[in-house]
């Protein structure tokens, strides 16, 4: 009964002009998802932060310098043609990660994962993290752990789940009240934490949701690159590495052209074509 409804496609749009790089999303995520920490976390290559905020600059010198902070949760790729063939899901040898066609969320099952790390190699966003160490909390601190997210053991990969447990809880509530989930009932921890209100989360398939209204996802493949679907028809909105065909569900928004350009790789002269192209497929819409 629940399965038969139209599938959701949960996604996110992050306003990079509003993001202040304050880090509240990162911490909210860690606190929500029982992410462990260790004494020295300054080596960012082995520091587990499901939500990571990248800092990039326009490379100019003060006072012309500009910074953009790019919060990067798991991008929940739908893969080429959006058939659920995400870079990581397709390579996992033990089916420890799958693509939920009902939600568009890429799962990660820690008890199934045996730690081959192929998915990490396949993910260009570095959204996947390996538990190199056993998680360890200072004495007593394990008291704050949430039962809604299973703590991970050493030797497995973990990543952002779009706070799937919040969906599960919201769904249980909706079930007993015999109704559908409301937009605001299922929001990720990073979204609710963001003091700048830079993150908007919701169902990309639902025109009533704010995220849909901002992104205006194009239902048709991009005429320039058929691997790409769900491209935004909002000229200020872009995705990371869109041209690889990962078809992510995390969209970014900025007024600044150099920021939008930094979202992908372009050969000389290509950007000029691409930046004006957003409207091209809007005839469909």
């Amino acid at each position, binding site marked *: 009964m629940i399965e038969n409804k139209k599938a959701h496609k949960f996604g996110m749009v992050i306003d990079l002009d509003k993001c202040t790089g304050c*880090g509240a999303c990162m911490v909210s995520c860690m606190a929500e998802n029982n992410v462990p920490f260790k004494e020295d976390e300054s080596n960012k290559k082995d520091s587990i932060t499901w939500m990571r905020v990248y800092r990039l600059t326009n490379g100019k010198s003060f006072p012309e310098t500009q910074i953009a902070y790019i919060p990067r949760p798991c991008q929940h790729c739908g893969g080429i043609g959006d058939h659920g063939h995400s870079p990581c899901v397709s390579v996992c040898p033990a089916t420890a990660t799958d693509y939920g066609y009902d939600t568009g969320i890429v799962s990660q099952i820690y008890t199934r994962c045996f730690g081959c790390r192929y998915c990490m190699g396949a993910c260009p966003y570095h959204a996947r993290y390996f538990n190199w160490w056993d998680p360890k909390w200072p004495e007593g601190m394990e008291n704050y752990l*949430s*039962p809604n997210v299973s703590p991970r053991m050493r030797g497995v990969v973990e990543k952002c789940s779009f706070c799937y447990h919040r969906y599960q809880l919201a769904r249980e509530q909706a079930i007993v009240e015999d109704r559908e989930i409301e937009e605001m009932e299922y929001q990720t921890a990073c979204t609710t934490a963001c003091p700048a209100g830079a993150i908007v989360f919701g169902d990309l398939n639902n025109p009533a949701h704010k995220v849909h209204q901002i992104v205006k996802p194009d239902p048709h493949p991009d005429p320039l690159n058929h691997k790409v679907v769900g491209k935004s028809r909002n000229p200020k909105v872009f995705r990371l590495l869109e041209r690889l065909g990962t078809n992510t569900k995390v969209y970014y928004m900025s007024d600044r052209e150099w920021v939008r350009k930094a979202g992908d790789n372009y050969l000389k002269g290509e950007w000029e074509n691409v930046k004006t192209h957003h409207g091209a497929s809007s005839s469909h819409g």
Partner: protein
Amino acid sequence: MKIDRRSFLGLGLGAAAGIALSPVGVKLTDDSSIWTQNWPWTPVPEDGEITYDRSVCSLCPGACGISVRKINGRPVKIEGLDDYPINNGGACLHGISGLQYLYDPARIKTPLKKTGNKFEKISWDEAIALVAQTLGKIRESGTPESLGLITGADSGSMAQLFARFMDAFGSPNTYTMPSLESNLALTAAALHGADRRLGFDLDHSDFILSFGAALIEGWGAPVACIQANASRCERKAKLVQVDYRLSNTANTADKIIAVKPGTEADLALGLCAVLLTKAQISTGRLFGDVNKFAFATMVVKEYTPAKVEAITGVKAADIEALAMEFIKAKAPVAVPGKGRGDVGQSLREFAAVQTLNALAGRLNKEGGVFVMGPADYLNFPENVMDEVAEKGAGKDQLAGSVNELVDTLEKNGGLSALFIYNANPCYVLSNPEKVKAAMDKVGFKVSFSSFMDETALRSDVILPASIFLERLEDVVSGAGLAKTVVGLCRPMVKPVFDTKHPGDALILLAQAMGHSIAQSFAWESYDSCLGEVAEKIWENLSGDGYVVIDDRPPAGTPATDFSFLASGPKAAEVMGEGDYTLVPVDKMRLAGGSMASSPFAVKTVSDKVISGKYSVVEINPATAGALKDGDVAVLKTAMGTAKVKIGFNEGIMPGVIGMPRGLGHAFNNPYVAGKGVNVNDLIGPVIEPGSGLDAAFGVKATLSKA
């Protein structure tokens, strides 16, 4: 019967075949993998009923409303409280990681007494008796004024309770740690009269001129300011940032005015001069103001655009244009306070910026600056003061500010006992070595700290305080917010350790001391005390969790006294020699004041800020010389030497190097302490005459490859 090799072979093969044909192999393979899925050393959080409880965060002056998610009463997550008048559901990373403070390895778990160099556990009864006895002797000797108090906050019932104790004891020696709040109060006192607070109505301003204020990096009420900035973006209100490095605030600004560090006051005064000359602001318009003509004459003469250009490095034409843009805006406001605005500030600068607001007619206007009275909602019964108390309390303070107190103590001593509440002067103040030396001159130090921080480590007795999640308290908003909200911080969990509410500790202490002091503290507990003294608003406070005292512009225009600036105070000098000017940099992800960062917060910090055990200093590659990105270098200032890592940053003015504040803690929390250097170790205090503020915004430094 011959048992030979063949028999053993038979035995072995038989056993193997028998096992192979039984479920053992399959089951063990399966179960051993399931064992790895349920390792006993991986915690399994207990499940249960989910409830939400509301409270107020008092980690910083922001005073945000928080919602605490609990499982069977066990707190598991802190989030911003929706519809709370300060933070509207938002939260900052420090507040969200609040639960880490609850179980912090540096928590003080029982009352402690120092014997020799070691702390010894004692009971609460013993601890209270010990402190009461020592203080009793001081009173008996007739010098009650030799008890000092260093406290972090100036508002709310806890501050008043401590003040009441000092009064009842008979000492005027109460000192507040520098904060944005206290700096603004000092500014208001110099310009508008005593007992005033300043609030900046960023939410309604259409032109914010920030003099280095890190509006989205912890200035004032951090979440409220970040939200104000987000709404500013939506409203298309302009932000102009005067700064010498590309802070995140500068980054979000529409325009950056690059100034040499430490010359912000000169720029503000230059803008005032332009307003007085170009914008034809008649000094006569400033009704009731004191010394306005003297100020106008001085500023027009001394701060011509050309002169200001020479000082600040901002082009004269740009100064004029900025002034005109400011005055022409509908609701402009100028905001003082480099970084978070707590330490390294000068009254001259705060006053100059506030004067700009006054000249532009922005006092008590929507979108301007509110000159507000104290949040007057507490009614304490009259204090009972005996003769000793009257005499002692009537004496002069030992010093004008906590910085001056450190000086005085270090040189001459003067206090025989010291209370420290909500403050960590041995870390926060410039030149902590000197602070420690000054502390050592005090015979008996009582700390009410929750954590074994740098100052608690030097105390003689510790009466450990329950943290905000374990206690009831009224929390008043402040810190430059243009509204006054009293929130109720409620215990979310029973004290995890053998700690007490500092209010209860104080009441017990007062009662143990007997006599008039006990009469002044005749409450059963802090909780009953709060209910009584906050009776006026208690019903709403305990019901809604908060009371909005005021959120509209105060009526009328307050008078401004220009005497301080008219006297032509000089800018603080930068100490020492060197090619670079070292400035501390406030980062949102690192707590800078007496509260140390949480493990989560430290984890989020970039490797361009902390790298292993090193602090990374920002330097513009153009002035880095032979130093390369990532090099380990020796940083030398007049105050000290430190090993640091070099981090290239295009976004800092050439010749200026920035060092993150909030690192270099030295106490028992391996997740937070032992990382980087405390920038305060390298910057000497430069005490501003007239305000007692430590105006050292930076220090000259040299860098050489290690």
